[in-house]
């Protein structure tokens, strides 16, 4: 095991981590504003992947436009989910919202099976995306580089929106205290909707990347990124955008290094490892690495 191999694993981890981070950010934003776990968040990734597949069938559409369309598609699905499943749950106990979002997730997955069949579909980006680039001991495909660059760009845009715009302040105020936000004249329904739209758009584009990276998609693919996003968000601190970014990259790195550096027999235990990490995090560091302590309401 030489340094080149380790470096390659790290690069792979960062690529995987970018996708986890994008999904985790959306998840964390939604949790931050309505304090509910959106189980269906991972399934938006699946929808994004299939939307990309569908759009790629239309030969004339440039890739950039496909990406924008997928962002929009993700946003719309997110807004529908908010209006249909989460808005009616506002004020209900935490677990009720959880069950509802679990139901939405199962519904989306099975609608996918219903209309798209459970057969995995092949997914391939245009040839120039698949080209290998060599950079010293490390090699990666163009699509991998695109993933990282796009992720960084999107994160910067997100931070700009959240910290520099009127909407962003409204979102952050609503996340902190809904009642007082209303007293400022903020329309919290719109703030929540916007949060869902942005978070889901990110999940959608992560679906595009996921398809490009793994080459095969099926209606149940959302399960994995959904859970990993949750774990990443918990690691970084649920509710914190920067925490989600950090958690996503850490999780990606940890997963790749776990498989890459440990003897192969342990590879099959990867999911058990990941979930054990989750349980440990929830017990020892419930606020994650960057999160703030949540108030225990008496």
């Amino acid at each position, binding site marked *: 095991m030489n340094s080149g191999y380790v470096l390659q694993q790290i690069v792979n981890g960062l690529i995987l981590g970018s996708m986890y981070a994008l999904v985790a950010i959306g998840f964390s934003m939604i949790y931050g504003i309505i304090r509910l776990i959106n189980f269906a968040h991972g399934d938006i990734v699946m929808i994004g992947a299939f939307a990309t597949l569908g759009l790629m069938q239309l030969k004339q559409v440039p890739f950039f436009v496909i990406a924008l369309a997928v962002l929009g598609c993700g946003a719309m699905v997110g807004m529908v989910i908010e209006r249909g499943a989460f808005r009616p749950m506002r004020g209900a106990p935490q677990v009720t919202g959880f069950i509802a979002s679990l139901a939405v997730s199962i519904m989306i997955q099975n609608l996918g099976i219903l209309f798209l069949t459970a057969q995995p579909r092949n997914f391939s980006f245009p040839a120039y995306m698949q080209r290998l680039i060599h950079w010293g001991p490390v090699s990666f495909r163009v699509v991998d580089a695109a993933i990282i660059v796009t992720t960084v760009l999107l994160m910067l845009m997100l931070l700009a929106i959240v910290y520099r715009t009127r909407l962003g302040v409204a979102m952050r*105020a609503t996340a*902190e205290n809904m009642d007082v936000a*209303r*007293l*400022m004249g*903020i329309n919290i329904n719109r703030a929540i909707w916007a949060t869902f739209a942005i978070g889901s758009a990110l999940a959608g584009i992560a679906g595009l990347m996921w398809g490009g990276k793994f080459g095969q998609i099926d209606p149940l693919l959302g399960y994995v990124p959904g859970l990993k996003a949750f774990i990443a968000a918990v690691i970084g601190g649920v509710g914190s955008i920067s925490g989600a970014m950090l958690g996503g990259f850490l999780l990606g790195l940890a997963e790749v290094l776990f498989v890459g550096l440990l003897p192969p027999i342990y590879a099959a235990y990867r999911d058990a490892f990941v979930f054990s990490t989750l349980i440990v995090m929830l017990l020892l560091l419930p606020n994650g690495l960057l999160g*703030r302590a949540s108030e225990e309401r008496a």
Partner: protein
Amino acid sequence: MLNIDNLHVYRGKTYVLKGVDLHVNAGEIVALIGANGAGKTTVLRAISGLLRPQNGHIQFQTAPHSDPIDLSALPAEKIVSHGICHCPEGRGIFARLTVRENLMLGAYLRRDTPQIQRDRDEITDLFPILKTRFGQTAGNLSGGEQEMLAIGRALMSRPRLLMLDEPSLGLAPVVVQTLFETLRKINRRGVTLLLVEQNAVMALELSDRAYVMETGRIALSGSSNDLAANDAVRRAYLGGRR
């Protein structure tokens, strides 16, 4: 300016306000005093729209001689746009946002940017401590500073009616003095005040008129001077005979 008529409000299943009548005239300072749990906070929350009344009317004149509108059916965001600002219990500042962002949130519904800037400068002159802490997270401020931030933020919305819920809570007496002087200054500039207070002594000193609430109803009302001299009030809320 503000007229509340036979207001009945429930919080969940609890029957809190059992027929409250009160009014506030433009330019006044009106105090609402009473023991814990009497329903004072609920009155403010019903006015600002955080709670919906079961029965009764809340009429508000949005401009000096206009027809009053009924607030009880409007959502809180709309009510704010009519010129009512509610400073909730515990100040309600956004601890994770900066002082600057908190202040600017007060002007969330306003579009006249140059005027907003000027107002902000005025307010930071009124509360110089906010200028020093301008870029800091609001959670780092002391209790008194947070109260000033809350009021400053409220002023940024140029309210016609400013409602304060227990502004003196948790503040040292000296700070409370300054606070109430500032409130008087604000009132002289033309802002009508409706004040909910546990500190009955200071509330009656500051206000023109007052209402005493007991278990969901108005027990007494009148000019603050009269109430301060009233024996029953003295015994219950002002610490007995002087």
